[in-house]
């Protein structure tokens, strides 16, 4: 019986190694699962090379093939032992190699990301240099951005304010940052037309940034005296409280032009539909794919995903920013080519997916 168990419960390839790409303090153990499926699991023991006795440090289930020991001290040398547990008996002890953990200075699993960033930065540099030298760079028409001037002008003619909603995201959302860039341009136009602007925020940090953006835009247009504190408002962090407050502002102050640009979630349709009901010209833009259909339905113009990020360059026509747009397009083209290549290679049974896997 014991011979039988010994034969079927052999633990092969028991290896202890420092877990790669971490900040230290962890040893990664791996082994080959034993054939006997009636075992209860594996008991893990550990000792330092100075100690003589092993201490039980953990247990892994019968289907486990690895274990992470997060209780080690960096630079100390350890030896591990694994044993099979079956019906309260522990047997077939297998020793590991000597191992020590250490903190890494570079995450090797992220080399692909670093490579992509460097490549993309080079593309940015290349296209911006071309733009600076006066090369003509074509950008396709974006109807939603062409309509900004019209919307601001309409609000001025009607003598009603412009409402700008930067969405339900804190300042760490890239689309909020893109939204602040667009706000800067709209605030400049609003200042030059001397039209009231209402910017409503749900996060305090976004509120302070928006306030500075609008104030600076008014100052740059030489209209700092026309800027009012009430233009940029802080409302609430509550999602539906925010939506209710915006609906209230739309119904009470009846803006002639509404801009909903940034990250939006379930409140998207609530506010866009209310704006639609009062007949305001509405321009929306979001990178939240699931909310795009709501905006397309309820707004006059919708910036789809990447168009939100292109807005600043499109509105300013600054050659350097336009150059960066071309870099974006080149990046997308390269990604597409890589994806097509990977697909073809996969069909040929050459799997290189691990090269583009993000860790």
């Amino acid at each position, binding site marked *: 019986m014991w011979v039988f168990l010994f034969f079927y419960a052999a633990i092969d390839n028991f290896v202890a190694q420092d877990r790669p790409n*971490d*900040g*230290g303090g962890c040893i990664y153990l791996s082994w080959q699962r034993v054939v006997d499926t009636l075992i209860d699991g594996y008991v893990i023991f550990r000792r330092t090379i100075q100690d003589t006795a092993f201490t039980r440090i953990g247990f892994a289930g019968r289907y486990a093939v690895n274990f992470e020991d997060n209780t080690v001290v960096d630079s100390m040398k350890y030896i591990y032992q694994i044993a099979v547990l079956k019906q309260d008996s522990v047997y077939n002890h297998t020793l590991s190699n000597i191992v020590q953990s250490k*903190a*890494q*200075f*570079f*995450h090797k699993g*992220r080399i692909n*990301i*670093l490579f992509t960033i460097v490549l*993309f930065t080079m593309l*940015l540099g290349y296209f911006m240099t071309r733009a600076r030298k006066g090369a003509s760079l074509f950008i396709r028409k974006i109807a939603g951005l062409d309509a900004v001037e019209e919307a601001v002008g309409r609000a001025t003619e009607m003598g009603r304010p412009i409402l700008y909603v930067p969405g339900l995201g804190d300042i760490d959302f*890239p*689309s909020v*940052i*893109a939204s602040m*860039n667009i706000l*800067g341009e709209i605030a400049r136009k609003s200042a030059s037309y001397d039209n009231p602007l209402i910017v409503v*925020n749900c996060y305090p*940090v976004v*509120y302070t*940034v928006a*306030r*500075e*953006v609008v*104030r*600076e835009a008014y100052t*740059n247009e030489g209209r700092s005296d026309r800027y009012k*504190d*009430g233009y940029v408002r*802080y409302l609430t962090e*509550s*999602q*539906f*409280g925010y*939506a*209710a407050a915006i609906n209230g502002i739309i119904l009470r102050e009846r803006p002639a032009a509404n801009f909903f640009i940034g990250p939006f979630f379930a*409140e998207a349709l*609530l506010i866009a*539909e*209310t704006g639609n009901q009062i007949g305001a010209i509405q321009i929306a833009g979001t990178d939240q*794919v699931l909310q795009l*259909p709501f905006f397309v*339905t*309820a707004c006059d113009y919708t910036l*789809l*995903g*990447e168009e939100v*990020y292109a807005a*600043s360059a499109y509105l*300013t026509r*600054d050659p*350097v*920013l336009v150059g*960066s747009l071309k870099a*974006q397009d080149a*990046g*997308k083209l390269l*990604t597409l080519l890589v994806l097509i290549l990977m697909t073809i290679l996969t069909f040929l049974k050459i799997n290189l997916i691990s090269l583009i896997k993000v860790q």
Partner: protein
Amino acid sequence: MKRKLPLGLCLLMGLLMMGQFFIPHPVSTKFNTLINKWVIVISAFALVLGIGNLSRHHIQIIQRSGPNRFYSLVTLLSMLGMAIIGIFFGIDEKSLYQKIFIHILTPLGATMFALLAYYMSSAAYRAFRARSIEAGLLLGSAFVVMIGFMPIGQLIHPIIPGLAEWLMKVPNMASQRGILFGVAFGAVATALKIILGIERSWLGGRD
């Protein structure tokens, strides 16, 4: 200096945080934790400014004695009331603060969310008026998806649920992924432009 300082700080912090992503060493992790604590502190200061703005705005409305002053009064009293209850009577599980939150604020939020159904039907009516080929396609796909995900779809014809699933998994997913690619590149480009000081609109101008 007014522009150089924020741009310099932005460049420095941007590069440090970018570097932090590639360095798993505890020094880097501690730096990240420290910065996150700073963010909390900065948010707290910003919250004071936000509450100041909210209070000032509503006090002005009350002072003007306009027709909407009652709403402003409710806003101010609610804000003040919750703050006092939270500070002096605690915010633990059985506190009055939590009771107000669970029994008043949560149902109010749910009410707003429930309104979405009505807004959705009015928006759907507009979207589904088959005035063009695109609107017709939209109407057709929406009809198939709606019927396909209901038990009646299977009863009408066994092919309908499969067709609905195909519409969601193939054309819908393909377009979503296309948009997401653009979004990802846009986000990276925006981040790089801001870190490198190329994009300056967030400073209120281009100069």
